[in-house]
Every structure is written in C-alpha cells, then in structure tokens.
C-alpha cells in the first residue's frame, strides 16, 4: 500500500512517500525543503525507518535513534519528522 503526506513544519516542508506492507514500512522516501547536516544522513534516516511497524511508537524510536547519530535539522524537530511520517497513515492509501 502506497501512502504519502505533505507536512508543514514551522519552517520547512516535509514530504513522505512510503510503501507499507502488513503494517510495516517496506520503503520510504523523505523529500522537502528542510535542512539536514550532514546531508547524506537522509539516507540513514530512511534506512532506520524501513522494516519498522507503521506505528507512532516504532517510528518515534527510529527517529530518536537517528538523531542520536548527531544529525542536525535546524528549525525542524524530531516530532516534526515523526508527525510527517505518521501523517501518511491518516492520509490513507493513494488512489
């Protein structure tokens, strides 16, 4: 099931495109006009989310783990990424 979300943080926009199978995130791509250093870290954020259950708790845990690697996202919080990802659930499958 393909899902997507467009999330507006206080400053910046996060777009989520995910493929969810049996309640787990099979694939996910995060795009948008936010900042993240180091930039390459976006790939590890996606990797950490893959295979997780598509539930707030699991997603939050993966994001927590991601920030522990030292990545910095000015004006965008952990919660923003968590809300962006989980928001895709409320948006429902793409027709």
């Amino acid at each position, binding site marked *: 099931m393909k899902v997507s979300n467009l999330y507006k943080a206080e400053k910046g*926009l996060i*777009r989520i495109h995910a493929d969810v199978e049996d309640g787990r995130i099979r694939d996910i791509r995060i*795009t948008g*006009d*936010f900042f993240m250093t180091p*930039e390459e870290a*976006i790939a590890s954020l996606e990797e950490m989310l893959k295979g997780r259950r598509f539930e707030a708790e699991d997603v939050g845990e993966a994001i927590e783990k991601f920030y522990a690697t030292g990545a*910095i996202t000015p004006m965008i919080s952990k919660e923003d990424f968590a809300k962006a990802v989980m928001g895709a659930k409320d948006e429902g499958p793409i027709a």
Partner: protein
Amino acid sequence: MKGRLLNLEYPDNPYLSLATEEAIFMEVMRKRSFPTLRFYTHRNAVVLGCFQVASEEVDMDYAEEKEIAIVKRFTGGGAVYHDSGNLNFSIIANDSYGIGINVAKLYSMAMDAPMNAFRSLGMNPEKGRLNDISINGKKILGSAATIRQNAFLFHAAVLVDTNLMTLASVLKVPGVKLKDKGISTVLERVTNIRIVSGKGMEEVKAALISSCSNLLGMEFEAGELTSGEESLATKLYEDKYTKREWNLERSIINVHY
C-alpha cells in the same frame, strides 16, 4: 586574515557552476584554498535544494518550454529561480568564529552580511526565522548553509532584478492545485531590490563585499580557481552534477576525491 574574492560564473552552465561550488568547499575544508567570497549568476535555471525532487517543485512543461535548466545544489532548503537579475554569493571558510557544528548559529552569523549590506544601501531589511530576508514583507533573499568538519559554506540568492513572472510560473507552490492561484501567491510574496530601492547588481555586490569583509575580518583580494579546485570541479561535474538522478530525483551521489 586574507580572503579570496572570486568572480567566477558559468551563466549558461549551472551544472558546472554548482560542481565548482562544492569543489571550492572541499578544498577550503582541506585548507588548500583561501577562505572565499564568490559571486555568480545563472542565465536561466531553477536550483533545487538537495532533498527536493524536481517534479514536486517545478512546472516541468513550463521549464522545458522556456529552456530553464534544472540543477541540484549540495545544500538543503527550497527551490529558487535564477536569471541574470539574480545575484548569488557564497561565503566559504574555515570556522574561526565559534560556530562548531551549530548550523543555526552559522545562519545567524552569516545572515548579518546581507542584512548589513542592504542597510548600507538604505533599505530596511527584515530577517526571517532562519535563512531569508524580506523587504516590506516580500522576500528578496533566500539562503542555504552547511558545515563539514571544520569548514562552512553559506550561499544566498538575491533578487535584484529577476523576472518575477517567470519565477512564479516555473516554481510550484505546494498544496496549490490551480496554476494561476500559484502564480499570484508567489508574486505576492517576492520582490526585487531594483523595485524597492532602485539599486542594481553592482551596488549590491559592492555592498556585500564590504559587509562580508567587516563581518569576517577579512581583506578580500581578487583571485582565481586553483588547479586542485578545477580538477575536482571537473570530476564532480562529470560524476554528479550532470547526472539526471542527482538533478531531478533525490539521490545521494558520493564522489570519491
């Protein structure tokens, strides 16, 4: 401290222009190049932030019709439209300003350069929350920055005399379904320095050189690209900046240098 002033542009090759930008950053980081203030323009290009996907930000049909190049930069942030009326400048230096890895601190320091420059030209700039500047509530500058090891790069696009109609037509406004609505929304939000102050390219550039010099405590001397930067730029151009997956998709391409 001695700095290099680099008037280096490839107006019709924004891919090489941005490959060169990354090459300079890498060489400054490795302390092989002087801290640099670079000025450049592009004739007709959309420059995307590195986490963006072209089709989500750009009216692709319009871009094709108007032969607007679509090129990715290696920093984050939003899409901008560059024509000859848009002045780009970059500050690339090693950190002796106590920034560390604090990107927010880098913005707050570096944004003073254009803020002071615009004030010195008699304008009344308003700083946004992180990386943009407006005048009378309309945006005239957007910037992006990054930090790697002990070096930083801050680059900004200044709307001096850009074709705002083209800008508004080629950039999509997220969540806005109607094209006309999108164009009017953008036109309400941006303006040109030429419109608000009558100042032009050369005046803005001179003011920026002086404000950067004061802010960074640097004497700028006109210089050229080093041979190391040149060969690295060529490699980045070939292996990354001319690749479709880099420019249009959201791929990470690691070039080994």
